[in-house]
């Protein structure tokens, strides 16, 4: 019995081994073969079969560059962002694929991960410094996070390399406006307008830049044209009000500012104009309220602080006026420094002109 038990134990212990050796032979999945099959299916337009094979292969290891990109596209379209990202990172890391990095940046940007997108694009720029798609994507992500300097550094070469594309000088102008460089913004925006004369966005941005340089008479026709094309455009209405105020056309300025505020009560430019109109009408308390709303809408604009200081002064609040003057000067200094940094880095414009 004891012997029998011993034999049984030996048999039991050996059983898995026997089972293994006795089972029919099943070849280990070969990632290369699966990818070959996927390619074959793709060539035969058997999309679903190809995707199934690619997903199988992806579980076994990293895919070839083109197949990784293909699968990333499929996963992205299917809403499987994590899987798409995994494939893109794999292609980017293993093959230094700029296509993968660009796609990854788009994915990250779409998920609100601007820092991640910028990092991917920085890697892409190191690999393809002169590629239009890379520069353009870098600029757009930078603009979206209100980082004008990197945007300008990408857009400046684009305007040189692709001189017929209106989008680039437009974005460059916008970036310079974002940075407070009104003087620098005018030239690219004029260039953009020359390339695309009836683009409302460009007309408005150019109007804003010209207003910023106190060239109200030059700003007005373009803004009128913008409103002809898009009568409900709030930005254009507010900018037109600013130009009219600058030209001393008070009733028109007031009407346009009111129109803009009816649609967007917190609009910074419209409130600023309204405040200035009220100042001229000697309605100082209303002016002060409008300037405060303008500052709330755009805390970076020095002009509103200056105007607010005047309103305080008219209302007899010297301390309030003094505080606003100091804020105005600080904002001005900040912009001056930013523009100086910008010009040093880019060499784009070099003869003064700040946002006031």
């Amino acid at each position, binding site marked *: 019995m004891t012997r029998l038990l011993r034999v049984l134990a030996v048999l039991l212990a050996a059983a898995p081994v026997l089972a293994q050796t006795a089972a029919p032979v099943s070849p280990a999945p070969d990632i290369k073969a699966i990818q070959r099959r996927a390619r074959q299916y793709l060539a035969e337009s058997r999309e679903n079969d190809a995707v199934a094979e690619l997903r199988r292969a992806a579980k076994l290891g990293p895919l070839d560059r083109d197949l990784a990109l293909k699968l990333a596209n499929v996963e992205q379209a299917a809403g499987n962002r994590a899987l798409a990202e995994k494939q893109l990172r794999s292609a980017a890391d293993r093959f230094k694929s700029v*296509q993968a990095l660009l796609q990854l940046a788009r994915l990250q940007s779409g998920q609100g991960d601007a820092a991640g997108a910028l990092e991917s694009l920085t890697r892409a720029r190191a690999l393809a410094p*002169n*590629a239009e798609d*890379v*520069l353009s994507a870098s600029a757009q992500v930078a603009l979206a996070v209100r980082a004008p300097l990197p945007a300008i550094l990408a857009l400046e070469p684009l305007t*040189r*390399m692709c001189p017929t594309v209106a989008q680039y000088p437009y974005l460059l102008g916008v970036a310079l406006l974002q940075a407070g460089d009104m003087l620098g913004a005018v030239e690219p925006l004029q260039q953009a307008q020359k390339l695309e004369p009836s683009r409302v966005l460009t007309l408005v941005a150019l109007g804003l830049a010209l207003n910023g340089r106190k060239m109200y008479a030059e700003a007005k026709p373009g803004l009128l044209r913008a409103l002809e094309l898009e009568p409900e455009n709030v930005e254009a209405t507010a900018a037109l009000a600013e130009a009219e105020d600058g030209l001393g056309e008070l009733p028109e300025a007031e009407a346009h500012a009111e129109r803009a505020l009816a649609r967007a009560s917190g609009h910074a430019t419209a409130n600023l104009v309204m405040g200035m109109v009220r100042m001229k009408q000697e309605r100082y308390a209303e002016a002060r309220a409008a300037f405060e709303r303008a500052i709330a809408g755009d805390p970076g604009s020095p002009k509103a602080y200056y105007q607010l200081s005047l309103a305080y002064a008219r209302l007899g609040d010297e301390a309030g006026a003094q505080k606003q003057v100091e804020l105005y000067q600080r904002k001005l200094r900040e912009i001056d420094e930013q523009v100086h940094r910008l010009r*040093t880095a880019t*060499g784009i414009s*070099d003869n003064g002109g700040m946002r006031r």
Partner: protein
Amino acid sequence: MPHALSWVAGLLLCGAASAAEVPSDPAAALDAAIAAAETSLREGELQVAESHYRSALLEGWLLLGDLQATEGQLPLARVSYRRASTSAVETRRALRSLALVHLQSGEAAEAVSLLTGVVGRSPEDVPARRMLAKALTAAGQLEQAVQVLEEAHAAAPDDLELTFALASGYLRLKKVEAAEPLFARIAKERPIPQTHVLIGRTYRDFKEYERARVELQAALKQDPSARRAHYYLGTLGLMAEGPVRLEEAIAEFRQELKVSPADPLASLRLGIALLESRRPAEALPALDLASRSDPPEAEAFHYLGRAQLALDLTTQAVTSLRRALELIKGPPFDEVQRGSVHYNLALALRKVGASEEAATHFAAAELASAHVAESARERLSRYLSDSLEPEPTAAVDPFMEVPLVGLDAAARSALKQRATTALARAYLNLGVMQAQGEHFSRAAAHFESAAEVAPDFPNVQYSLGVAHFNAREFDKATGPLARALAQSPDDAGLRRMLAVSWLNVEAYDKAAELLKDDAARFSDPSLEYAYGLALVRSGRAAEAEAVFARLLALHGDSAELGVVMGQAHAQQGDYESAIETLQAALRRKPDVADANATLGVIFLKQGKLPEAEAALRAELRSNPSDLKSQHHLATVLDLEGRTEEALPLLRAVLKSKPDFADARYLLGKILLAGGAAGEAAEHLEAAARLAPEDANIHYQLGQAYQKLGRTDEAQQQFEIFRQIKDKRRGSTS
């Protein structure tokens, strides 16, 4: 004669290659960029490929610019460097090179502006700072130049070349005390005789002759065979006191030649000095040696020719002086020198009896310079002092900064071929990438650049034509497509594309000609239709009818076909059939293009103005950008006396198509009738330029001038009107 200072300084102080030394393969970076681009293309990494192709453009244009600058083609070099500066993200090298071209062209302010930008963006770029200092010097901003050098020197105190430049800057400002310690430091850091020679020459150039002598003698003390020490000593006396020190100079030059027997510069100076001392026989061997320098020097042949002339070796003199003239073509050239060569050549030619040719050279000499009359000694003095004086010319010395000057003409030509081929290839591939993204206009721009650098590059005309065709830029497509067809006359697809382009630019006869023998017409109704349309519009309505009849028989009726048939009827004056056919087409398809437009024109011709207006307005509702219908409508409105409505229509037409002569004419005529003679004249003048054979335009223009009181011009226009009318009468009689 190249000034030696810059390269000597570079060689001595940095251990760098001289300017005459050429990198092992100047096109290596270009080739590498192309190869990398093509690898990336194969891998499917289009952005990387594009980036490399753009790098190739940068390298290619830089190389081409360098080659052009080397050959003295400064305007071309300028264009190339500009192209380089817009090819890729990097601009630094292109702008530096462009600044140098400006400097060489005497446009120092432009150079300063460019280099200020470069230095601002790249403060670490020491060569750019040095060049900026040179540009500022050339622009006469000496203080600022020294300031730039001081800043650069502070940032890179161990850069001896910079130290040398700063010391030279101080000398220029007469701040000898500031320069001295810097030179002393250089001499200490590089304790070799050449350093003393360099410093000696610099002192000499700034007229610090005694300090120069001390340095040159220090060099000789250190090494009695120090190159160029005797040579500069020889020039010292001449520069300080002029030709009275000729003998001393001759002795020093002879000493120099003992050290370096084959030195062409010392030989040339010795030869010149001996010739100016009226010792042509002694001068001859030295000048002969000088004339064998590589690259050959115009001055060596000039003085050799003069020595030969003086020794009655007239035939040889003619040869030498002719060679001098050939060599003097490229910069740096000197009109005085050119005049002198012409003058001496004229003398030699007169001696050999070639009086006619001699007269030409006398005239050229007179033209080139009045200075040829100066005395030999004055000339020597001027030559020795001016040409050895590097300031301010060193800043604009074209040979010193150009990297390819060491290459011979054949090597340069081969390099140019490589550069243009690579550029064409890069542009072509960039164009293909744009075309793949369906950005046809941008693709065409790249193909155009390819065609510009290498018009015969394979596929370039074809690609350009197809890109314009796909961008619907038919007017631009016809040229390249026609050239491509000439290269491949059997390409039926190409022929059809060209025919369609001609059709779209209204060159109907050319379209008809190309489609005439196209066998595919019989199986492709659209092609047959295009042929019929081309026939109708080129005035061959009868032939067209046969084509349309065949189309109708084979493919049935269609609204579009009806329109073209209606047009064919109208062209033959059969307005009744035309109206019937066009209205039938409209019943079949109410928005069929051109039916109402054609009806409008027929009604206009019949004087049925309300009907014409209705038809034209109907056409414009479905086809608002039809400029011809807009113009016809304006004509109808004018005839109805509704000019206020016609005017904005015509202005809009001209905004879209400024070269629309009929619209200009009508606008001018209406304005004139309304009393705006000034503006009317402007439009009528434009119309006359666009359609000079239209008599009516000249008549209206004459009227406008008359109203403006420009009577003579009015008479001229009436005269042109009369001549055109007479010619027409003559041709029809």
